[in-house]
């Protein structure tokens, strides 16, 4: 590879990494928003006398995101794993009392 081409590739690589960092920051923000809603859901479930653990709801959430991930061309098994982690994180937030 010629030096100008290499320099150009390195510049673009740095730009891609900046963009990835920006998206990672957004993901963190979205996760904290999701977790805050999870906590609120937990309070509401308690107020309504409902159990915190709701496997039927969790399974429906996973199914929905699996379909969306597949439609978006993502590897759906990997996306499921990510969302099971998120669902678990949210459930633990719901279980934690103030």
């Amino acid at each position, binding site marked *: 590879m010629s030096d100008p081409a290499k320099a150009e590739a390195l510049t673009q690589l740095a730009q891609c990494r900046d963009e990835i960092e920006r998206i990672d920051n957004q993901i963190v923000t979205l996760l904290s928003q999701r977790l805050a809603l999870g906590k609120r859901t937990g309070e509401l479930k308690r107020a309504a006398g409902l159990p915190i653990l709701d496997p039927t709801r*969790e*399974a429906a959430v996973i199914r929905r995101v699996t*379909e969306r991930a597949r439609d978006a061309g993502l590897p759906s098994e990997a996306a499921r794993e990510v969302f099971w982690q998120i669902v678990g994180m949210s459930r633990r937030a719901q279980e934690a009392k103030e």
Partner: protein
Amino acid sequence: MIIITRPHVTDAEIDHIRERIEAVGMRTHLSRGEVRTIIGCIGDESLLAEVPLRSLPGVESVTPVLKPYKLASREFAVDRTIVRVGGRDGQATFGGRSIAVIAGPCSVESREMLLDTAHFVRDAGATMLRGGAFKPRTSPYAFQGLGAKALELLAETRAATGLPVVTEVMDTRQVDLVAEHADMLQVGARNMQNFALLAELGHVQRPILLKRGLSATIKELLMAAEYIMANGNHDVVLCERGIRTYETATRNTLDIAAIPVLKRESHLPVIVDPSHAGGDADLVAPLAFAAIAAGADGLIVEVHPNPECALSDGDQSLAPPAFTQMMAQLGAFARAAGRELEVTGAPRAVA
């Protein structure tokens, strides 16, 4: 419990089946083959009593898995698992048609010694390098390994030779550091039932080499693999390394039967460590040949440039000429077993 789907099952049908299972609080694992797909159910199976699994669209049959291990069991996977180690610089494959040979010193002793050994074993046909950084020694006064320094040397040697590296991790606190430097993480025999460590290794993005404990049954080995897999890491290679028996002429007794039994019980690749099994350099080649004949997917062998001066396990380390000779003979055993020795596709030395 496993659910075998009809041929040409749709994604929507699979999603629906999994949702019904997960709605009772269980988890599912998918294994897709060309024709068949298997949905494995993980968790308390009594929860499924009320779910009419057999009548769900796309379901062909439902079979209970009676073994305590699920993800590791042969029934859970349509095809045998192939574990690929390494990446940019070079790759080793476990569980395919080819047989991978991991070789290197028991412990990393110095940069020069590691580089020399690595170049040598690569030229003799090994596709992966081993080298201990943290050593679990019976005596607290024996050489304990170079630790973090050895990890850096291993990474440097990989860059120089193109050989992916495997090294042992002994403690949950070391997992991130070792994963940063090594391509594959080894759980030593003495840690096979260190469940905190196994669970931690379930979360790393590196294949795991799981050695059978010196007094562990095959079932216990598979349960240890299950621990790693249940925590999310499905790239596990099992390693038979000899078990403790009443025999004192050898360091351990190589359990040859464990190879076909493990391959019957599990879809995971199985390799053999003939160095620790025999504890004697003269026994390494015959045990290696027997392992390949019995269906092993690879070997892990200790090689030292000068075994007499080795800081650990000198008695069982092969000197370079003996390793070359063994590798020259190994191909014939591989072919007799319908296999071939792995040839690395990696670019050769860049150092």
